[in-house]
């Protein structure tokens, strides 16, 4: 194993002190001279035709500088699946119809936010109401109202995966079970509400500061919707207060800010309110999941048939990717010799669901893992044993889905069992307490190029200087997860420098190298990390050349950059400081600075991802039999993320995942009435607080991912999946109530307890 100096260390993130002192600038902190404040008028109806919009009164309000509606903007639809234009189904402002409560209809820019808000109330919209549909079943019914003309059956995307022979597989099964699971929508609830500032230069070019995870995608889609050239749009990502998948598309306020900045010649800012975020923002897909699995008597899996319908809301958003991925995740974790998946993305008149941490995995794996727990019980096999028996291992290949090049799944299961004292606790917990297991596998970035990028998936530029420092430029987007830190660590390690020697500039499309698809699907560490290493290697070759020439070294010498020096590995005295080596190269190049670009695009890695992570989690709960309240006492996690770049940051990702998954399992849900979201404050939409968090203990299983930078792969997104099934199983273990429809609420538990009692009475 390679010895690291910077990688693998608990290095505090360099941006932390800016954040700790309040000096880090987030988008809403930006104020430009002459700036106007924008607000959006949203539809109060779930489904309606726009008959007429009268903005004259709003326009006449003193202080209002610009009012726009769908009639004023280029008729260009957008959506992230650029490779398939038919999936691009959204206009920045509704043109013909509104499709959910909150659909953007008009925008105002005024000299202050209060005037903008007042102007919204003066806009008169005449709607013709259309019958709405609010759930998958009604949307799929014959004769259901059609939400998009292009999808007469309200299904916008379907996906199939099939390998082996599923029917034949089931015919050989000794035990088959069929279940239907439903999972609900939850909010990303990033603490920073979305915000954007747009400025138009004298020559008509746009600069956009925006709270985004994907500056390059915003640049491209903004250019197309504004009917501008890509290079005339510059997108800058300031510090971002969390994204979790919710900030990876072009959003109406980004378009409106840019469009109105062009119209008025003044900068325009939009910042959403929390109410807007919760009432109308993207969310995790609700799904109905039908799953049939077959086993041999001894627990060997023989077949799986999975059908998932995604409740997409009014537009596609990131739904096509979620449809694609939930079928892939259904095939993960265990070796299914025969597998079939059918997924469909269904429109309903609700706020669109999009990408959210886990991207189809939390839903799909809730079904997989709960069914695994149910099967274990009926087969009379310990749930962890059953998993170990069927677990994927290194070298496994899933046709069309994956090649598993590193896998610590079995070790994770064993370690989680050991840490939690599983065997003993399963048998001997106090009444009302229970313990359960759930597992996950996740991707390290996507392979399938639905955005149709013309550039490498990730790129990095490294500039080195004779004062012994380096400058890393990358379009990878740190949204709080710490990618700037991780990439800096990787570069410091490669060049043998210290963290303080490296300056990072990230996520500015006019400055950082083309391109990077942004932060989603846990792609950054692996993809941008590989691009950084590629660039560093090119730099090193130059430095090695200069040092070799200087000392007249035999070409067979292995060279090294370490501890701020460049030298021959076997003869450390034959070398010089990093800065001196840079100066020599520069001299040899007659003054040309030493700069290199590195790239990464996954090739020959199937359609899904270059690398998978794995892990297992055990939850211990206590359930109050009177109130049905669940207390999660402790969570043990063992996971495999390849080489760990920064253990403290990885642990932070794990703990953040537990937080989010705890909310998903127990406390978070939208209360909807006829398409309208009713709980629009953090008082009513309950994300866990400090007191709600369980104790957590974790272990990282040692693996090395050959495709990853220094052996690293995904950490922190997949971890959001195992918690809900683990808690659900623990609640079952404690009470006999089996949850197949998230969230696990006290009401459901109490009803479950009553039903169990009734059943027992009947039996006796």
């Amino acid at each position, binding site marked *: 194993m390679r010895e690291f100096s910077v990688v693998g260390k608990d290095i505090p993130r360099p941006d932390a002190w800016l954040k*700790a002192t309040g000096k880090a*600038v987030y988008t809403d902190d930006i104020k430009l001279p002459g700036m106007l404040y924008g607000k959006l008028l949203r539809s109060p109806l779930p489904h309606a035709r726009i008959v007429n919009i009268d903005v004259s009164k709003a326009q006449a309000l003193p202080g209002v500088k610009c009012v726009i509606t769908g009639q004023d903007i280029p008729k260009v639809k957008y959506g992230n699946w650029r490779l398939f234009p038919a999936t691009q189904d959204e206009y920045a402002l509704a043109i013909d119809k509104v499709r959910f409560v909150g659909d953007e209809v008009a925008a105002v820019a005024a000299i202050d936010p209060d005037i903008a808000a007042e102007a919204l109330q003066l806009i008169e919209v005449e709607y013709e109401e259309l019958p709405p549909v609010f759930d998958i079943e009604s949307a799929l019914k014959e004769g259901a109202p059609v939400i998009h003309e292009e999808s007469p059956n309200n299904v916008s995307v379907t996906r199939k995966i099939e390998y082996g022979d599923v029917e034949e597989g089931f015919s050989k099964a000794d035990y088959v079970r069929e279940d239907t699971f439903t999972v609900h929508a939850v909010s990303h609830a990033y603490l920073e*509400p979305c915000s954007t500032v747009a400025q138009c230069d004298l020559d008509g070019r746009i600069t956009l500061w925006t709270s985004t995870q994907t500056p390059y995608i915003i640049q491209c889609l903004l250019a197309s919707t504004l009917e501008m050239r890509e290079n005339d749009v510059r997108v800058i990502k300031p510090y971002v*207060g969390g994204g*979790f998948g919710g900030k990876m598309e072009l959003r109406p306020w980004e378009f409106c800010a840019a469009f109105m900045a062009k119209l008025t010649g003044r900068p325009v800012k939009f910042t959403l*309110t*929390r109410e807007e975020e919760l009432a109308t923002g993207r969310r995790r897909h609700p799904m109905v999941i039908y799953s049939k699995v077959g086993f041999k008597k001894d627990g060997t899996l023989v077949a799986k048939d999975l059908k998932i319908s995604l409740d997409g809301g009014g537009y596609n958003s990131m739904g096509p990717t979620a449809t694609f991925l939930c079928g892939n995740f259904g095939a993960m974790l265990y070796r299914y010799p025969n597998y079939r998946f059918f997924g469909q993305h269904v429109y309903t008149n609700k706020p669109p669901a999009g990408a959210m941490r886990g991207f189809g995995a939390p839903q799909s794996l809730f079904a997989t893992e709960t069914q695994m727990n149910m099967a274990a019980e009926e087969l009379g096999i310990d749930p962890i044993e059953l998993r170990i028996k069927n677990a994927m291992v290194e070298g496994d290949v899933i046709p069309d889905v994956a090649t598993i090049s590193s896998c610590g799944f079995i070790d994770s299961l064993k370690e989680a069992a050991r840490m939690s004292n599983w065997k003993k606790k399963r048998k001997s917990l106090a009444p009302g307490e229970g313990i359960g297991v759930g597992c996950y596998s996740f991707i390290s970035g996507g392979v399938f190029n639905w955005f149709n990028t013309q550039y490498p998936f990730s790129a990095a530029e490294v500039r080195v200087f004779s004062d012994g420092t380096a400058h890393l430029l990358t379009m990878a987007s740190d949204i709080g997860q710490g990618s700037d830190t991780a990439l800096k660590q990787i570069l410091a390690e490669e060049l043998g420098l210290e963290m303080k020697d490296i300056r990072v500039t990230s996520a500015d499309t006019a400055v950082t190298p083309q391109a990077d698809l942004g932060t989603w699907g846990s792609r950054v560490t692996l993809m941008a990390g590989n691009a950084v290493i590629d660039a560093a290697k090119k730099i090193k070759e130059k430095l090695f050349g200069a040092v070799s020439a200087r000392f007249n070294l035999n070409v067979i010498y292995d060279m090294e950059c370490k501890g701020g020096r460049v030298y021959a590995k076997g003869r450390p005295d034959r070398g010089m400081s990093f800065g001196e080596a840079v100066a020599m190269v520069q001299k040899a190049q007659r003054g040309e600075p030493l700069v290199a670009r590195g790239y990464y695009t996954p090739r020959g890695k199937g359609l899904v991802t270059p690398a998978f992570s794995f892990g297992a989690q055990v939850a211990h709960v206590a359930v109050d039999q009177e109130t049905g309240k669940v207390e999660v006492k402790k969570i043990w996690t063992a996971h495999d993320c390849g080489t760990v770049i920064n253990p403290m*940051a990885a642990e932070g990702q794990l703990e953040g995942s537990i937080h989010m998954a705890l909310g998903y399992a127990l406390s978070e849900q939208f209360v909807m009435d006829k398409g309208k979201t009713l709980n629009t404050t953090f008082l009513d939409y309950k994300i866990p*607080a*400090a007191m709600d968090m369980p104790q957590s203990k974790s272990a990282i299983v040692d693996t090395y991912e050959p495709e990853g930078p220094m052996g690293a792969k995904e950490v922190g997104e997949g971890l959001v999946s195992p918690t809900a099934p683990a808690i659900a199983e623990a609640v079952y273990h404690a009470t006999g109530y089996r949850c197949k429809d998230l969230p696990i609420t006290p009401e459901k538990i109490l009803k479950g307890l009553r039903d169990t009692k009734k059943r027992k009475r009947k039996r006796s």
Partner: protein
Amino acid sequence: MMHKISIKVNGDLYVLSVEPWKTLNQVLREDLNLTGTKLGCGTGDCGACTVLVDGRSVTSCLTLAVEMDGKEILTVEGLAPAGEELHPIQRAFVEKGAIQCGYCTPGMELSALYLLKNNPSPSEAEIREALSGNLCRCTGYNKIVEAVQWAAKELKAEKSKSTRSK
């Protein structure tokens, strides 16, 4: 109608005219350009806007600026003692990995300061309780709790050092 108020923010005196509906958060962020104080919800539920007013922690998004006349306000920008880069609480947040996106951080730090002023040796449960009005979506709180524990120790050590040297 505008109201005239004079407030001391991080030791600096400001005399301002404010509309009666303006919140302290708006005045800090928009009028004084002290954008370290964040706005996460505007309804008093997330704590991102927490500041200290006369030593007590308040949610600045629900506090009207007109009520602040004559008061002393401490925001994240004023946390570090003069001449020092970081307050021990800030240092603890940095060192312990308690900061990810950082949006909750200023509010968390001020809630932590308020706690440690009133209870220099809080138990873990007391820390969790004191921070229960501050939401964080990134960290899962554990590292924040660790940071506050660490800061408590540091502050006590500093105090005993300074009393000894007196």
